C-alpha cells in the first residue's frame, strides 16, 4: 500500500498536475512538494506527489533499471 511510482509532470496548473506514468496520464496534487515544474520527475502515492527527484536521482534510477534489464531480472517497483 505504500507503493509510490515515479512519474513525469506533463501539465501543471497551480497545485494540480497531470503526470505520465509510462504514457498513462493521471491528475495528481503537487501541494506537498516544493516548486513543482513541468518535466519534473516525482514519486506519486494515492494521488499526491510526495517527493521530487533531481536529474541525478532520475539518472540513478534509470541506471538501476537498465542494470536489471541487462541482468534479465525485469520487474521492480
Amino acid at each position: 500500500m505504500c507503493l509510490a511510482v515515479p512519474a513525469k509532470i506533463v501539465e501543471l496548473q497551480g497545485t494540480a498536475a497531470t503526470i505520465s506514468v509510462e504514457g498513462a496520464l493521471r491528475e495528481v496534487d503537487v501541494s506537498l512538494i516544493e516548486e513543482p515544474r513541468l518535466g519534473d520527475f516525482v514519486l506519486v502515492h494515492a494521488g499526491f506527489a510526495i517527493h521530487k527527484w533531481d536529474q541525478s536521482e532520475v539518472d540513478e534510477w534509470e541506471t538501476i533499471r537498465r542494470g536489471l534489464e541487462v541482468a534479465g531480472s525485469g520487474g521492480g517497483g
Partner: protein
Amino acid sequence: MMVVVQRIGELAQRVGRDVNLMEVCGTHTMAAFRSGLRQLLPSTVHLISGPGCPVCVTDTNYIDAAIALCRRPDVIVATFGDLMRVPGSESSLENERAAGAEVRVVYSPTDAVALARENPAKKIVFLGVGFETTAPTVAASIVLASKAGLQNFFVLAAHKTMPHAMEALLHDQQVKIDGFICPGHVTVITGAAMYRFICEKYRIPCVVGGFEPFDMLKATEMLLAQIADGRADVEVEYSRSVSDRGNVAAQKLMAEVFEECDAGWRGIGNIPRSGLTIRMKYAAFDAVPALGVRFEPARPHPGCRCGDVLRGVITPLECKLFGKACTPTDPFGPCMVSSEGTCAAYFKYGKRQAAV
C-alpha cells in the same frame, strides 16, 4: 548487481552466524519475491517479513465497523481497493457491495471528497488506513473538505505509524531481529532520523531501502557490513528519495489534522503511540463521533495465524490454513488478501523460493 551479491557473501562469512533481517514494509516483501532476491542470498542471511502491510494490521473490528457503516442507507463508503476483500467477523466490503451496499473504490482520498460534492444527500465515509506515507494524503482530504465547507465527508481513521511498532517487535521474545530494512516510502515522509532511537537504545542497525531489487540487495549489504563491524547506525540506501528530515510539508499537514494515539494492531495487540487519531479541531470529519461508530469485539478465524506472520514468528508455510483452506480466492486472513501481504507473496511466488 552480481558484485553486490558477492560482497554479501563475503560479509556473511565475516559475520559468521545466522542473521535475521526484517523487511518491515509489505512492498519490500513483494519486491523481494518478485525479483527472486531471496535465492541470491547466503543460507545464513534470512529476510523475514514484518508488519508493514497496513491492510494486514488493520483490526477485524475496524472492518466490522466499516461494514456496519456501508449498510446504512444514507452512507457511501469509499476505500482503497486493498480493503475490499479483507474478511471481517462475518462479511467483507466486497460481499456487502455485491449485496447492494454502496462501497466505492477510490484511487485517492481526494476522490472521496469529490464523491461528497457529487452526492450532497449522502454521507461519504473514507476508510483512512495506511502508514505515514498515506496519512498526509488523508489529512489533505480533510483540510480540503473543511475549506470547501462540506458537511457530508467523514474519515474512519485507523492510521498507524512505524517506529513504535518496530520497537515493540524488538521486545518480542519470539522474534530475534538483527537489522531492519526500513520502509522506503514511509521514510520519504518522516525522514530517516526517526529510526535513530532504535540504533541508540537497542543497538540494531537500520537501513532505509528502495524498492528495486538492486536497492534491496544493496540495503542487505549495508546491514551486513554494519553487523560485521559491530555498528548500529541509521543509513539510507534509498537516497534518491529519502532525506534525514523527510517531507516537512507533509509532516505539518499530518500534525495539523492528526495526533498520536495508542493503536491496536491485528495479531500484535495494542502498541502505545503507534496510531493517529483525528484532532478535536476536525472532529466534524471524524466518523467515530460524527456518525456514532462503535467498535464491537471481533471474531477472527480461530485457526488464522496472520498475527504470528506479521511479527515474523512464523512463515506462512507453518500455518495450517495456508494454501489449503486459505487461498487468495478464498482468504481467511488479511495477509492472504492484500497484494502485499506475506501469505499472498508466498502463495504467488511459490514454496521453493519462499523456503530459501
